[in-house]
C-alpha cells in the first residue's frame, strides 16, 4: 500500500524562475541565499527520503485553465505534463513525468469521497508547479526530472473559491486516496503558493511577514485553526493573491496530525513573502 512520507509547502513565483534560470551564482548570492539555501536543504532531505511520487497541490494562473470554464478542483491523470507558455515562451524544461494510473485512482477515490474534480488527461503546468519544483527535483543534463508527479489544481483566482475548510478536507480525502492505493509507493505531498503578496491596486507590493510566520506556525501546530479563516480575513492579512496559502492547508490535511516541521524558512523580499516548510512523518 502507498504511504504519505512527507510534505512540502513552498511559495511559487515567476521571480523564483528568473533566479533559478540565472544560474548557481545568482542563486547563491547574498540576496537570494536566504531562499535558495533552504531549498537546497529540502533537495537534500528529499534525496534521503526517496519518495516515488509527488502529489503537487497548486494553482494555475490562466495558463491551462481560463475563465470560459474554470474548474474549482482539477486533477491530472496524464503520463506527462508539458510546461505551459505563460506568454513569454515556455521555459526549456522537458515535460514532467506523470503517473496516470495513480492519477486515475486518486480521481476515483476523490469522487467516492464527494470531491467531484475535473479530470484532465492533458494538462500543461505553469509556475504554480515549475517555479519551486526544479529546486528540489531536477538535475541538469541527462538526469532531468526524477520523481513522477500527480498535479491537483485548486481555484484560488475566480471567486467564489472553495473555502479553506473545503481545501483542508480535500487534503484529507487525498490522504485516503494515497493510503488506499495498492502499489507500495512512498508519496510526498507538496502545496505551493503564497505567502503574502498583493499585485493589484494601491497596496501593490505589500508584504506582511508577521502574518506569514504566524501562518507557518499554525500550519505546523494547529492547522485546523486555519480552516476557520474566511477569504475576507486572509485577503486583509496577506493580500488579494495570498489566498494561495489554501494549497498549503490542503497539503497539511494530507499529512498525519503529528507530522513535524523540519526545514522552515521565511524570506520577505521585494514584493513577496517567500515561505518554505517541510514536514516529516514518523515511519
Amino acid at each position: 500500500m502507498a504511504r504519505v512520507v512527507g510534505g512540502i509547502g513552498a511559495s511559487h513565483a515567476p521571480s523564483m524562475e528568473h533566479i533559478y534560470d540565472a544560474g548557481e551564482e545568482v542563486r547563491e548570492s547574498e540576496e537570494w541565499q536566504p531562499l535558495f539555501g533552504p531549498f537546497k536543504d529540502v533537495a537534500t532531505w528529499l534525496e534521503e527520503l526517496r519518495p516515488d511520487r509527488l502529489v503537487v497541490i497548486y494553482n494555475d494562473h490562466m495558463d491551462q485553465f481560463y475563465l470560459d470554464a474554470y474548474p474549482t478542483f482539477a486533477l491530472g491523470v496524464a503520463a506527462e505534463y508539458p510546461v505551459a507558455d505563460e506568454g513569454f515562451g515556455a521555459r526549456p524544461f522537458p515535460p514532467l513525468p506523470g503517473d496516470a494510473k495513480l492519477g486515475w485512482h486518486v480521481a476515483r477515490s476523490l469522487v467516492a469521497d464527494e470531491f467531484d474534480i475535473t479530470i484532465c488527461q492533458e494538462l500543461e503546468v505553469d509556475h504554480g508547479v515549475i517555479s519551486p519544483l526544479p529546486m528540489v527535483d531536477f538535475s541538469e543534463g541527462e538526469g532531468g526530472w526524477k520523481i513522477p508527479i500527480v498535479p491537483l489544481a485548486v481555484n484560488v483566482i475566480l471567486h467564489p473559491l472553495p473555502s479553506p475548510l473545503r481545501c483542508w478536507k480535500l487534503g484529507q480525502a487525498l490522504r485516503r486516496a494515497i493510503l488506499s492505493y495498492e502499489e507500495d509507493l512512498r508519496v510526498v505531498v507538496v502545496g505551493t503558493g503564497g505567502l503574502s503578496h498583493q499585485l493589484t491596486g494601491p497596496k501593490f507590493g505589500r508584504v506582511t511577514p508577521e502574518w506569514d510566520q504566524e501562518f507557518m506556525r499554525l500550519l505546523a501546530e494547529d492547522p485546523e485553526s486555519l480552516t476557520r479563516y474566511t477569504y475576507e480575513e486572509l485577503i486583509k492579512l496577506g493580500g488579494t493573491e495570498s489566498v494561495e496559502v489554501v494549497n498549503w492547508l490542503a497539503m497539511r490535511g494530507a499529512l498525519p496530525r503529528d507530522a513535524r516541521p523540519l526545514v522552515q524558512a521565511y524570506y520577505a523580499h521585494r514584493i513577496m513573502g517567500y515561505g518554505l516548510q517541510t514536514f516529516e512523518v514518523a515511519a
Partner: protein
Amino acid sequence: MELRDELTQDYLDRLRAVQPSDLPEDLDLFDEATATRGRRLNKAAYSLKDEHQRELFHRDEAAWMAQFGLTDAEEELMRKRDWIGLWRNGMSIYVMVKLSGVTNTPLPEIGKQMRESGGANG
C-alpha cells in the same frame, strides 16, 4: 415559513463567507463584478499565451485588438498601456502579466502605477 427553516444559520454563514463583502477599497477581488466587467479585456490579454497572437500584436496591434470586440474606451486603455485603467476595468493580474510581457513592461513599473493610483475607484 417552512422553506425559510431550511436555510439554517450555518448555511447562511457559509453563504455570506463565500463572497467577501467588507474589504477596504484598496484590496480588490476577482469575482462576479470584476470578471463580468473585464470579460473582453481578459480575453484579449489571455490570447497572448499563443505565440501567433504575440506575433500579430507586434506586427499590427490594431488588427490584434480588433479580434476581441473591445469598446473604444477599452481599446484606448490598451493603446495607452494604462495599467490602472485596465485593472479598474476588470483585467485580471494573471492575464495582465501576459500583456506586460508582450509590451516589455516590467512588473515593478506596473506596480508603481498601481501604488500611485490612490484608490480602487479613485
